[in-house]
Every structure is written in structure tokens, then in C-alpha cells.
């Protein structure tokens, strides 16, 4: 029984990881083809990511957009989550739902909504548009993690601080922030990774002006497959894996995914 169970778990994980494995391996092909198993061995396609100017620019585009958008999303989510939790403001449920919806609804709908919005403002194609729109799209993630963090705070600590005469600002600065920093950080990381990988919104808003890595991979797919695409994909997968490992190491990954009574 236990054996069958382990085989099953192993089988599912193999299915989940096999595309990643194939992508990483075909990036080692010596010739410009996507043979699997790879023929010959070279790291040229991986170094190409840096030395080929077009790829380097797209990596910088992706990183700068993801960096700005995830910080923006976190700065939007933190005051929202905090005022909903601490001040129980009116319409807090509604605001919370609006904050969650961009991510849960089909992204293509948000994408053409954003497109028509920026086109109406005559800003179509500018780099700022994608940062602002990704900022909205990704707000959901820090909003979820920060809310989770706030809910896990022991309310007695707050009572104690209040009865000792802490002002709202002091309370926030010296008690709340230290307690929820891991949650803010994980929300930021989730948003960052998802912005890096997001395709449809980027394509609709700035697909023809600012090329990010997913857009570049998609565009290159039309002109034939090269191992550089595989190398770029592999680099993305690895960076996501590293970032999630950092979250798991610094914070409580199980709790972040909603496991409450952890054994």
C-alpha cells in the first residue's frame, strides 16, 4: 500500500516537472535545434541570454517591470489590508473583493479592459501603463498574504500596547510592521514572480513596444525554435524556484497557503 502510494506521488511529481526538465535539457544542445535528449553539450545558449543584446534587454524589461509593479502592488495592498483589519471601515468587504478580483477573473478580460482604458487616455504603448496595470493585477497576492498575517496577530498584544498609551502610529510602526514583515515580503515575492511570467496583459498593453521575456519567447516561437528560448525559460523556472524556497525558508509557506491547524 505504502509502496503504491509513493509510486503515485512520484509519478505526479514527474509529470509536473517533466516539461521543466525537458526545457532545461534542450538548452544544452550543441546545434541550433531542440533535440531531446540533447546532442552534445554547450552552455552557449545560456550565456547567450546575457551576450545577445535583444535577450538582455528583454530580461531587463521583465525585471524592471516586475520590480516596480510588485512594489506598487504591495503599497496598495498594505494600507487596504490594514485599514480593513484594524479600523473595520465601511464597505471593507466590497473593497476586499475588488482587491481580490483582478487575479481571480480571466486575465484576458482585465487585459482588454486595461487596453481600452489606456487607449482612451491616449497612453497606449507606454512603459508606465504596464507597471500601473500589473500593479492592479497583482494587488491580490500581497492583499491575501498581509490579511493572513494580520489575522494571525494575537490581539492581546494590541490591547497591551493601547493601554500603555501607544499612538496609532507607534502601534503600527513598532508592533504591527515587525509582526507582518514576513507576510509582506512573501506577498511581494509572489507578485514579483507572477509579474515576470505574466503574458497576456503585457502583450496587449506593450506587446509591440516593450518586449519582456515571455513576450520575446512567444515572438520567437513564430520564427522557429532556438535553444536560447529554452535557456530563458529555464532561467525563469529556476528563479521562481529560488524565490519560493526563500519564502519557505524565511516565512511559513504552509500557513501562507491557508493551512491553519498545522500539525
Amino acid at each position: 500500500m505504502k509502496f503504491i502510494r509513493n509510486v503515485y506521488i512520484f509519478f505526479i511529481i514527474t509529470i509536473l516537472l517533466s516539461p521543466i526538465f525537458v526545457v532545461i535539457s534542450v538548452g544544452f544542445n550543441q546545434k541550433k535545434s531542440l533535440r531531446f535528449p540533447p546532442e552534445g553539450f554547450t552552455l552557449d545558449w545560456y550565456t547567450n541570454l546575457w551576450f545577445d543584446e535583444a535577450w538582455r534587454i528583454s530580461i531587463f524589461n521583465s525585471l524592471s517591470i516586475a520590480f516596480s509593479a510588485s512594489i506598487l502592488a504591495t503599497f496598495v495592498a498594505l494600507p487596504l489590508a490594514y485599514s480593513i483589519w484594524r479600523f473595520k471601515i465601511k464597505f471593507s468587504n466590497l473593497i476586499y473583493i475588488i482587491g481580490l478580483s483582478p487575479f481571480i477573473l480571466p486575465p484576458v478580460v482585465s487585459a482588454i479592459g486595461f487596453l481600452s482604458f489606456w487607449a482612451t487616455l491616449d497612453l497606449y504603448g507606454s512603459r508606465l501603463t504596464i507597471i500601473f496595470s500589473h500593479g492592479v493585477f497583482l494587488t491580490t497576492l500581497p492583499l491575501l498574504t498581509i490579511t493572513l498575517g494580520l489575522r494571525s496577530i494575537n490581539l492581546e498584544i494590541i490591547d497591551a500596547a493601547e493601554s500603555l498609551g501607544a499612538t496609532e502610529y507607534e502601534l503600527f510602526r513598532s508592533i504591527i510592521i515587525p509582526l507582518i514583515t514576513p507576510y509582506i515580503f512573501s506577498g511581494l515575492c509572489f507578485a514579483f514572480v507572477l509579474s515576470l511570467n505574466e503574458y497576456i496583459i503585457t502583450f496587449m498593453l506593450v506587446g509591440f513596444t516593450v518586449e519582456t521575456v515571455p513576450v520575446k519567447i512567444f515572438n520567437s516561437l513564430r520564427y522557429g525554435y532556438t535553444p536560447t528560448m529554452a535557456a530563458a525559460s529555464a532561467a525563469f523556472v529556476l528563479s521562481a524556484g529560488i524565490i519560493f524556497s526563500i519564502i519557505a525558508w524565511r516565512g511559513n509557506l504552509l500557513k501562507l497557503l491557508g493551512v491553519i491547524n498545522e500539525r
Partner: protein
Amino acid sequence: MVKDKKRVGYIISSIPTLYLVTFFLIPLVILLSISVSHRVPGAFYEPGFTMAHYARFISGFFGEILFNSILLSALASAAAILIMFPFTWILTRLSRFVQISILICILAVLSLSEVIVGFAWSTLLSKSAGISNLFVWLGIVENASSWTPSFTAVLSGLIYITLPYCFLVLFPVLSRIDPEFNEAAQTLGASPLKAFFTIIIPISRNAILASYIMGFVFTLGSFLIPNLLGRPQHWTLTVHITDQTIYQANMPFGSAMAMFLLFTAITLVWFSQSLLGKKE
């Protein structure tokens, strides 16, 4: 004092709320107004009121696309739940370290750009690098062949992207199931397998249905998988929305389809969340 406190709350939440309203709700309102406006060939659109785009969408060719999309999503989400439910259940009973390591893999797969998944699957299903080579090597088939583009390729790609998503919906619910249920069943003489089918599945039926619906909405929104792994006749609603908006420059029609997708998604998500809420 209490009033002052509330005021602080309104002040600090006002800017983020305004931001979300401006950059998320207003775009959707604009989209709605475009969906009922007149199309101007060669230009953007002209304000007005017509239901023609909705009418066109319901009839004929696009009705078929809608049916096709629903069929694909329904199948993909069902397959993903079937594969993932037992996996998630077993995982919640494993040690913390194993759980976290597997979670990292699953999150990495979940966050994978659809471009990369599409690219990886088209490689896996291709003639030169694909699984069919493995089958040749094993002696199951004679010659390597390409399995993409095809309906099966689209379906398997969709199942693949839905697997980690289903997992994420099921995981918190299943890890809250008290281990004592299972222990009690086994003390009373049920095998683990029997306990799984007669206890675990029935008590989590709301979660199963909810994650089925969430998976369905998720696959309905997939753009690149049908685009990269299918022929035009396998294109789903999402691909056509993009095609109409960007390549056919028919913004009003694209918006009408997007509005339809939006309302379908809202209804389904709302329904699935009420299912999850009922359990607690």
C-alpha cells in the same frame, strides 16, 4: 476617540481604493461601453448603443466556439481534479519537510508563464524531441510522430496548467480535515482506501465542486495553450477575444465576448466561494 480612529482608516485606505477603482473598475466600465458601441472599420469605435455584437456572438460560428471552450475547460478541470485530489490528500498527511519541498515545486510550476508551458509541451509532443521517441524506444510504436497541434495536445496542456491550481484550492481544505476521522475509520476496520472513498471524498464534496469550478474558470481564461498547441478550430473564447481585439481590430465585438466571459466567471466564482463558505 473611536471616530478619530475610523477617520485614520478612511484616510489611509482612500488612495489605494481610488487606485483600484481608477485602474480596474473604470477600465471594466469602459469595456462595457465599448461592447455596445458601433464599430468603425479601420478606426477604433464610435459611441452608441447596439446589441449587435452580443447577438453575433450568440449565433452560429461563435456559438460553436463557446461550446468548444466549455467542453475543453469542463474536461480539463475534471481530469485535473481526478489526478490531483488523491495526491493532495496524501500530501497533507506527509511530514512538514516533504510537504514544503513539494509545495515549492508546485508553486514554481503554477507561476510558470503559459508561454513556457506551451513551449515545453510543444517540444514534448513534437517529432524530434517528444515522448513519441520514448515510445519508439520502448517498442510501443514504430515511428516517431508529431502529436501537436491537435485537440489532445490542447487538452493535455490545459490539464497540466490546471493541476497546480486545483492543488492550491484543495490543499487548505484537505489539510484541515481532522486525522481522527481517518483513524476512527481504520479502528473500525476500514482499509485506508475504503476510508478515503467513504469518508474523505464525501466530507470534501463541496471543496471538490468548488475547485472544479475554479479550475474551470482558470482554464477558460487560458490564452496561450490553445493558441500554441491547437489549430484554429481548437481556439477557445479567450483566443478569439484576443484575435478580434488585436488582429481583427474589432474592439466592440472583442469587448462583448470579454463581457460575457467576465459575467460567466463572476457567477461561477461567486457560486464556488459560497460552497466553500458553507463548510465552515
